[in-house]
């Protein structure tokens, strides 16, 4: 199957290894990955910060870029939720009926990686090998906007060699929240401190999530504290095989 990759601006710029891992996993499963170069950003930062007029062009560009694809995958639950929930609203607010129709047809074809694999492609064992102690943080938008449920955990359970540790208070937000992390830095840091304590209590070497944004936040604090705990996107673990370390 031909699947278009919506890489997201953050993953593209700061976490290229996560995106390369998505390509590796899908190609290993026999799919063809397309990457339209015109793609940029879903507009979440602007919309969630209150700049809705600046957010609309992103919805428009997204529809123009991905409209021709039947299936789109993204390594971010948050950006997938933005496209699926907010692009239709932005289009409706704009009064552009054509755009609304386009977005309504396109939004359901945009899938977060773990939901694409388990729900659409029907795969839980992607042939990965990762002999390390891992704990998984379910991002808020994967849990409460996309309702991804345990899809990422089912994929992780099927990884050979993995030692999966349950994260206490897993469904509690890490405190990133996009521009919340700089507009309310003190609360954000307090929430992150509790998340780091939960991660450390598991004894895991690796913290895993479906969103690079949460991992950037928690990972940044784990690094600052020199905990030695590393962060990896779900795709990076799924891309790991016995023959080669993805890092």
């Amino acid at each position: 199957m031909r699947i278009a990759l919506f890489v997201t601006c953050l993953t593209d710029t700061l976490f290229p290894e996560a995106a390369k891992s998505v390509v590796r996993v899908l190609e290993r499963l026999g799919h063809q990955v397309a990457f339209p170069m015109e793609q940029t950003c879903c507009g979440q930062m602007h919309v969630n910060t209150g700049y809705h007029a600046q957010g609309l062009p992103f919805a428009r560009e997204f529809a123009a870029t991905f409209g021709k694809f039947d299936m789109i995958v993204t390594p971010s639950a948050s950006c997938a939720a933005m496209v699926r929930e907010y692009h239709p609203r932005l289009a409706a607010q704009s009064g552009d009926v054509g755009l609304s129709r386009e977005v309504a047809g396109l939004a359901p074809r945009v899938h977060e990686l773990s939901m694409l694999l388990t729900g659409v492609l029907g795969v839980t064992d992607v042939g990965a090998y990762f002999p390390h102690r891992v704990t998984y943080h379910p991002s808020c938008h994967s849990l409460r906007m996309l309702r991804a449920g345990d899809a990422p955990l089912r994929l992780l359970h099927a990884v050979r060699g993995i030692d999966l540790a349950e994260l206490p208070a897993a469904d509690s937000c890490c405190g990133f929240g996009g521009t919340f992390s700089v507009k309310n830095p003190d609360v954000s840091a307090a929430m992150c401190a509790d998340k780091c304590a939960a991660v450390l209590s598991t004894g895991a070497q690796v913290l895993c999530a479906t969103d690079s944004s949460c991992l950037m936040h928690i990972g940044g604090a784990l690094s600052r504290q020199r905990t030695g705990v590393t962060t990896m996107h779900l795709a990076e673990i799924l891309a790991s095989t016995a023959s080669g370390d993805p890092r």
Partner: protein
Amino acid sequence: MSMPTYLGMPSFPDAVRPALADSQLRRNLAHATGTIRQKRAAAVAELADWEELRAAAKAIKDHTLANLEHYLLRLEQAVTAAGGRVHWAGGADEANAIVASITRAAGADRVVKVKSMATQETGLNEALAAEGITAIETDLAELIVQYGGDRPSHILVPAIHRNRAEILEIFRRQMPGVPAGLTDDPAQLAAAARAHLRRAFLSAKVGVSGANFAIAETGSMVVLESEGNGRMCLTLPQTLISVVGIEKVLPAWRDLEVFLALLPRSSTAERMNPYTSTWTGVTPGDGPREFHLVLLDNGRTAALADRTGRQALRCIRCSACLNVCPVYQRVGGHAYGSPYPGPIGAILTPQLRGMSTAADRALPFASTLCGACYDVCPVAINIPEALVHLRARAVDSQPHSSFYSERLALGTIAWTLRRGARLARAQRTLSAARRLVRRPGSPGWVGWLPPPLNGWTRTRDVPALPPESFRAWWSRTRGDDD
């Protein structure tokens, strides 16, 4: 329209600092919200049709709000027919003046109060004090807050920020006739309050309450409570005044079936709260001889005009959203600068009060949009949706000079991100410049960024820029072909 208290509060991002640094408060909040959260989940899980109940409650409230004028006039008619008197108050000052004048006409200089959010909102106690009338809070937690010269920090548990040692101190200092040798044993503290309040109940001429629901069909008021103080205030004084927000009206008695299933489980995690009082006008020879209903607008009509924001008017004040909110759990209620804290406060306060101050404009941003509040809301208020909507209103309503750097930064980012080629160029520039901001964190991370990005690096490292973006790698290894 106004909420006269809390003037001069700093904005949320600054107002949180004392709470975040208060180890006792952090512990009290984590413990209290954690306990009630678990209990609520268990109480809700008992009902197989919880989601249907939520949908029904949402539908009833939406229908009522869409036909508010009709139901309010019906309520007025029914209350009047049952021997009560209805007063319409546009704003807080007007409501407070009505209560003061009724109290004076009753020849009283004191009122006993049932816990009420509407009168917290209007600042009734302070307004009455200015008129020489003493308001006595009879809910135990409200009494602690009042004696402490303090403000409530939770809708349901107003003194959630106080521990028993502090309560003992407050009672010793403030309570008339406090028993000698009183200790911080909760049973002793409650007994002391009980003895004190009993004297107040028996001598009060005027009672003041709010209402959880007002039934248009019959003109009946409904108050749910746990301590029995409400029942005392509603039945003993000769004059009863109820200050009720106009959004509290329900069309008919049968609607209570839905809300009485939702509210106690959501707020106190009980199947049914201990005391539910209902009354209809006056009944000769039984209870108050005079009943006054003050219907309060105070910004509600303005909120009703906002298609997305108006869903906040469905709120039944259960406070489930506070208990699950990761922000509230860490900072408590005071930083929200309003009697309505937490997620519901962040969408209700700026609508009731308007967004003319920086503090009110900051409230919709006091959330990570994690969505836990929406999941537990018994009337299915999509709080994250309303927050995002109100953020846009906040940005649009701010004076052009403030937030200017933010507007400029986001405009620049938007311009850069609008075309794939622009983003690619920016990524190449950043990759080339990455050595300039290098102060190593642990491997792969950078420990310092220049202002204004140092807000992030004060407590967190940032990932080091990779030598090559994903799109550069794709172009190099796969070509431009999509």
